[in-house]
């Protein structure tokens, strides 16, 4: 090769780089490893973690420890899927394209919406894209976000707003664990709100009154953007039925490992009337020259590689392999299985809540309906309780005070410092929950 190219050593090819910017002396990094050394180093790092999956975990808040059917990883590990690029050459990408079409169909089934895109990075960025899309549709730029939306997602929305073209309206209050409807109505009265952004179940686990929120938003000419939990949508009335215009969420729970918070996937669905304002890729069905059915990336004139600065979003890479995992998961559990998993999680969460209240160590800050995540107030120091329970092998929920350190939840801080958000998936057992309640009671 060197001879064909006409250089003595390959380093000569780098003579086109001006001397002043050449790196002399090489990178200051360690020498390479053999595979056996690499394997041992990586295992040592992994083994020094104590993962939630090896403990009894009641952590949730957007990232959930649901059972992942074995078949999911076997499918997504097929190299034809995971070593492929974006399906820009449809003739040799029908596998990816059909699987995305099926994914879109499943997300529509869960959310009740007309169309879904091919996935986004995560729930937080999908929520921001929902707000941005609402701004394009309504030609307004103010966003009214509920303080019960996941604090990290609110933080993300504000980062995008600060840098871009959105403005965040004053937050409504949290009332009884839910978004204050009178505050929402008062804010919407300005008549210039593009999107009302809510989450249901919300960060604290409570189910919001989506019907009323939709009515208020639509009366004011705003779109309703709803973040939802995809597992619960197996048994929860879909946001579309209440009038949601855009439904987003974190899809990790559908067959993806928690993986320290990423990669999961953001799902994004909307009404067909707004499809040309939708961000991200989308797959459509068509035919080839022989009349055979086939799939192809479509409506590309919304996207950055065609529209450049006028694109609906800058997104290029999405989370296709995670979306494939979500599809395989939904196929594996099926219509009945998904409802069963959701029901089991809900029943167990209600069981744990009762058990914790029975210890006398917890009180309920409010009475809301909830799915498989709920919030209680601990009578003592939450951090000390967490440490003590970790010694017994329990991850005792998410401390609202810890989350407050990053982003205010809008609650009275004297209350917030005692609040813990518990999540219970179908993986938890009654003996685990009984043992947890017993240990807490003995603190």
């Amino acid at each position: 090769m060197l001879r064909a190219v006409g250089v003595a050593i390959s380093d000569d090819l780098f003579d086109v780089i001006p001397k002043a910017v050449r790196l002399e002396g090489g990178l200051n990094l360690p020498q390479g490893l053999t595979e056996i050394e690499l394997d041992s180093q990586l295992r040592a790092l992994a083994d020094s973690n104590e993962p939630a999956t090896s403990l009894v975990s009641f952590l949730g808040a957007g990232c959930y420890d649901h059972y992942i059917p074995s078949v999911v990883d076997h499918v997504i590990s097929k190299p034809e899927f995971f070593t492929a690029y974006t399906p820009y050459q449809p003739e040799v990408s029908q596998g990816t394209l059909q699987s995305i079409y099926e994914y879109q169909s499943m997300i529509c089934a869960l959310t009740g919406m007309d169309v879904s895109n091919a996935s986004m990075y995560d729930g937080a960025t999908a929520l921001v894209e929902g707000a941005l899309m609402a701004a394009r549709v309504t030609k307004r730029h103010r966003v009214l976000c509920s303080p019960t939306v996941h604090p990290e997602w609110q933080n993300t929305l504000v980062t995008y707003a600060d840098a871009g073209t959105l403005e965040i309206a004053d937050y409504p209050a949290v009332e009884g664990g839910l978004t204050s409807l009178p505050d929402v109505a008062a804010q919407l009265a300005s008549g210039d709100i593009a999107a009302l952004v809510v989450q249901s179940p919300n960060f604290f686990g409570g189910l919001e009154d989506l019907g009323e929120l939709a009515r208020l938003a639509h009366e004011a000419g705003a779109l309703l953007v709803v973040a939802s939990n995809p597992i619960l949508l197996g048994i929860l009335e879909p946001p579309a039925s209440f009038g949601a215009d855009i439904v987003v969420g974190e899809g990790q729970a559908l067959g993806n490992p928690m993986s320290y918070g990423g990669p999961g996937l953001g799902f994004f669905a909307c009404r067909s009337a707004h499809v040309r304002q939708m961000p991200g890729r989308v797959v459509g069905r068509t035919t080839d020259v022989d009349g055979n059915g086939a799939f192809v990336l479509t409506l590309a004139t919304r996207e950055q590689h065609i529209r450049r600065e006028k694109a609906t979003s800058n997104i290029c890479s999405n989370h296709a392999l995670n979306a494939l995992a979500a599809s395989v998961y939904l196929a594996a559990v099926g219509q009945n299985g998904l409802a069963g998993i959701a029901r089991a999680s809900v029943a167990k969460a209600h069981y744990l809540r009762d058990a914790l209240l029975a210890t006398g160590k917890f009180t309920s800050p409010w009475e809301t309906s909830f799915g498989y995540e709920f919030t209680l107030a601990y009578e003592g120091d939450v951090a000390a309780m967490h440490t003590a329970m970790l010694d017994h092998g329990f991850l005792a929920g998410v401390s609202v005070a810890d989350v407050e350190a990053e982003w205010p939840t809008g609650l009275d801080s004297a209350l917030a410092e005692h609040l813990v958000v518990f999540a219970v998936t179908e993986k938890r057992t009654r003996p685990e929950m009984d043992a947890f309640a017993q240990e807490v009671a003995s603190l």
Partner: protein
Amino acid sequence: MTEKLTHTPGMAPARGPRELIFELGSPESRCVEAAPLDVPLTSVDEMLGGYGRKVAPVLPNVTELEIMRHYTHLASMNFGVDSGMYPLGSCTMKYNPRINEDACRLPGFAGLHPYQPEETAQGALELMVGLSDALAEISGLPGVSLQPAAGAHGELSTLMVFRAAHTAKGDPRKKVIIPDTAHGTNPASVTMCGYEAITIPSNEQGGVDLDALKAALDTDVAAFMLTNPNTVGLFDENILAITEAVHAVGAYAYCDGANLNAILGKARPGDMGFDGMHINLHKTFSTPHGGGGPGSGPICVSDELAPFLPGPLPVEFEDGSFGLGWPESTIGRVRAGYGNFGVMVRAYAYVIALGAEGLTEVAEQAVLSANYLKVRLQGTFDVPYGPTCMHEFVMSGGKQKRESGVRTLDMAKRLLDFGFHPPTIYFPHLVDEAMMIEPTETEPLEALDAFVAVMIRIAAEAASDPELVKGSPYSTPVRRLDEAGAARNPDLRWNPSTGE
């Protein structure tokens, strides 16, 4: 027509269109269910406060065997790096080492919850610190945030950092300059960050037209975005003059890191005067593209900009333990969690496996292979820029179009018949009938020679039998598609009520 193949090498023979997964199985079919319930369950609708679902969502009901057959069939209609050479310019489709796949699936990594206490995630945090340090060394830019999920996300995040830094100086600016060869994500990110995108023309060598740049620069310019090596595969020799001109008006220089593979261990964007960049772990650092993602787009910035980085970030404390922290003047979050950790594990494994010398050899071999292809093909195709390219080069199908009416698109489709993924085509726009070819360092000489032989053969076919090339591909699971029809009458989901 014996020249037509029956099926694409590297792929299973087409078996015709596949049913949708919704059309398989039966209402009784089962794969996986929840364990028997061990707690009381009265009324779910009551538990859900009356918000219970009236009609179940229409999802497949299939057995595990039906799932495996379905996706095995779909996989057989897909082409990946493991199927054959994938010389897709600017996408760096290199081999994905399998041990990296094993590593990210280790329970100690895959089973971590983002809210578990830091003391139970020390190995993960140490890995993130190690990856951040390595990226700082490779880029020559000391401030690193692993948060962004993909390249475009990294671009946007860095522009947000620039905006915050300008605002902190009391000098918010309005415009960002990009060359006409920029990836589409660049101008799209500029708009999302609330700036106006100003496009400047490239010079005759495909590089930055320094005069055009200087004419566009003023004190309202927040940044200039540049891919270096650029999209035609050339290292911009004026790079120091470019970044100096950008700095002279108080703007920041941004490096789109899509082409970092070319200069690993040879030159560093920080030393070229860039203030910030993103790195595509799913290109340079061998993590798989997954049919479109997930990627990971860490950003690296100068000391001056580091306080503005998005967080939280992994930190090493003085006692040698690890945790998470926030930069002093952070722009905030750009997503939930700490970034695409599973992708970071793969990239970290790649970096420590190769080490300093191995990474440098990656650049050497990637550049040598690209130059080899260029030399072998330049007698057959027009190659507008030269003499030496970096990791990729652009050639033109203009000669074939003029002489036989065969377009680059046709030749790209014909490549599929021979078991090669086509190059990136019709980009950059300034080259007529462009083909952007990036072989990567992992393709063996035999594959490069086979690619050359097929390209030369296709050029000969274009001359002798243009209709053969224009009608291709013949051997793929489906043939050319009605893309206009797909966009005119969008069919974007299976409709459960009609079963279509």
